[in-house]
């Protein structure tokens, strides 16, 4: 299936490339825009990016596969990242993670059966003074307790409809 960039994505790409002295520098920003719109970055999308900045698709893929944030497969509707690093762990970060997992009956790095969330560990989110912390999509939640995690999960269950679980890795590849 060919990648059909949306008009906003085309506009953004046109705007962002000339900001840089060299086109290739714009890759990461374009990838961010694609992932925000599509939820992940397909190989077809990578080919499109390569064409925009005039490099080979493999050079885009090198970038996509290096950075933990970029993904080639869809995830749950909400992307939850719990900080695993020392200051959070010292303040109960692992428990916070367990709570998210048990609330959605899922495992680390997997999408919940209801398709609502994917829970992962993140490394230090630069908010260690208010540990333990987690991010849900763009938003940071600090000083988390198990009760607060439960409330956050209840809100997600209330606001996000159940969906078909994200397609498996294979189905998004050629």
């Amino acid at each position, binding site marked *: 299936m060919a990648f059909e960039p949306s008009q906003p994505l085309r506009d953004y790409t046109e705007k962002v490339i000339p900001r840089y002295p060299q086109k290739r520098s714009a890759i990461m920003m374009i990838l*961010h825009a694609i992932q925000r719109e599509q939820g992940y970055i397909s190989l077809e999308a990578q080919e499109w990016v390569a064409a925009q900045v005039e490099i080979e698709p493999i050079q885009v893929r090198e970038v996509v596969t290096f950075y*933990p*944030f970029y993904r080639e497969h869809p995830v749950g509707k909400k992307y939850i990242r719990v900080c695993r690093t*020392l*200051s959070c*762990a*010292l303040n109960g970060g692992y428990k916070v993670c367990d709570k998210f997992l048990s609330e959605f009956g899922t495992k680390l790095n997997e999408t919940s059966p209801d398709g609502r969330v994917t829970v992962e560990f993140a490394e230090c989110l630069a908010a*260690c003074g208010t540990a333990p912390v987690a991010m849900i999509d763009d938003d940071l939640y600090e000083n988390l307790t198990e009760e607060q995690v439960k409330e956050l999960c209840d809100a997600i269950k209330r606001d996000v409809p159940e969906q078909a679980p994200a397609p498996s890795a294979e189905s998004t590849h050629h």
Partner: protein
Amino acid sequence: MIAAPKRTDIHPKERRMILKHADDPSYDTSVDCYIEHGGYETLKKALTLKPEDVHDHVMKAGIRGRGGAGFPAGMKWKFLDRKSGKPIYLICNADESEPGTFKDRQIMHKDPHQLIEGMMIAAYATNTAKAFIYIREEMPHGAVILEQAIEEARAKGFVGDKIGGSDYSCDIVVHRGAAAYICGEETGLIESLEGKRAYPRIKPPYFPAALGLYMCPTIVNNVETLCHVVHAVSMGGEEYAKIGTPNNSGTRIWSLSGHVQRPGYYELENGKHTYGDLIYEIGGGLKPGRQLLAVIPGGSSSKVWRAGERFKGKDRGGNEYDWAIEDVPLNFDGPMTAGSMSGSGAVIVVDDSVDIVDVLANINAFYAHESCGQCTPCREGSLWMKKITSRMTSGHARPEDVDLLASIGDQIAGRTICAHGEACAWPTQSFVAKFRDKFLERAERQAASGSGDIRLI
């Protein structure tokens, strides 16, 4: 949900220069608010001076880098290769990724124009052609705030073409990372900004000041460092240098976290306080009934201090010192004198509710995850150390692990392209050196972690 909530409990011992307005409830991130508080006056002043004179203020101020190495900013700018005739680039390192550090977050989310003003002054002083802010992906709101602030500053003529009505033009571009720690290392950052994997470059020859972004002369400075430029130029380099202590001028924002009652960021005059003041007085001390186990004085890569140890010797001035952890001066040189470093200013306090092996296992998991994989000692060594310490925490510690860990650490440090080699080796080397008995004891007990309230791995 707020990316950086305002602090209401500013400690009386703080001397706020960089965070002077940040936590004021009525202060916001608009350019109008910044200007109302005297913002961009220093940039205007700088534009009336010759670039060399602006640079001179920074030299005289003795501003040292707040990103990790503490290198004098003015000196770094001097190294710029101006003979090449290539454009000069300025990069603000806003990757803030050393575990324990959360100070740049406060600046960017609460006072973005201060950073922009600092960058434009630095850009003018060095004749920069274009400036970049490399902000970590995990601060999406910060990136939006910065972009908006730059837009507003551009509309007022402080960024972009002919700034402040002068002949000098320079734009700032906000660039976002994608959750890789190694982008904090300046040459990895540069590769990343070029649209590649963040593989650090070897120095020599790739010193950014000569062969940086697009192989052009480039300055990389931390967010907090660039903010200090505003104050150095505003009050004059010599006046600025009077703040703090000799060779440790200005203030510094310390990020205090871990097992203390009042964790948080505290801006203090350099060298006027000690680690004891920060942990016990300002940070409220340990939780009731707890004993101190260890202090990590400058980000998780800095060498650990064991509770009760003493640091003795003669300093460079020939003065004898005999310090406990609590006596170590809170500045750049103090922790170095005590065998570690102030690094990014991140102090992590660990009490006796956890096992030291677990602490190291947690740290090792971080550095193994973040190795870029270019150098065999770092890639294999960090993973090996992680595997050993993880095994130790699962009830399978062996007495010989201590020496094995030490030897792996010894074979990484000094043998890699970038300082991630040291960053991953120093924790292991220092933990096993200082807590040898505890590591051996763990092997004797064969105890697994994870049953208690706090799990670290």
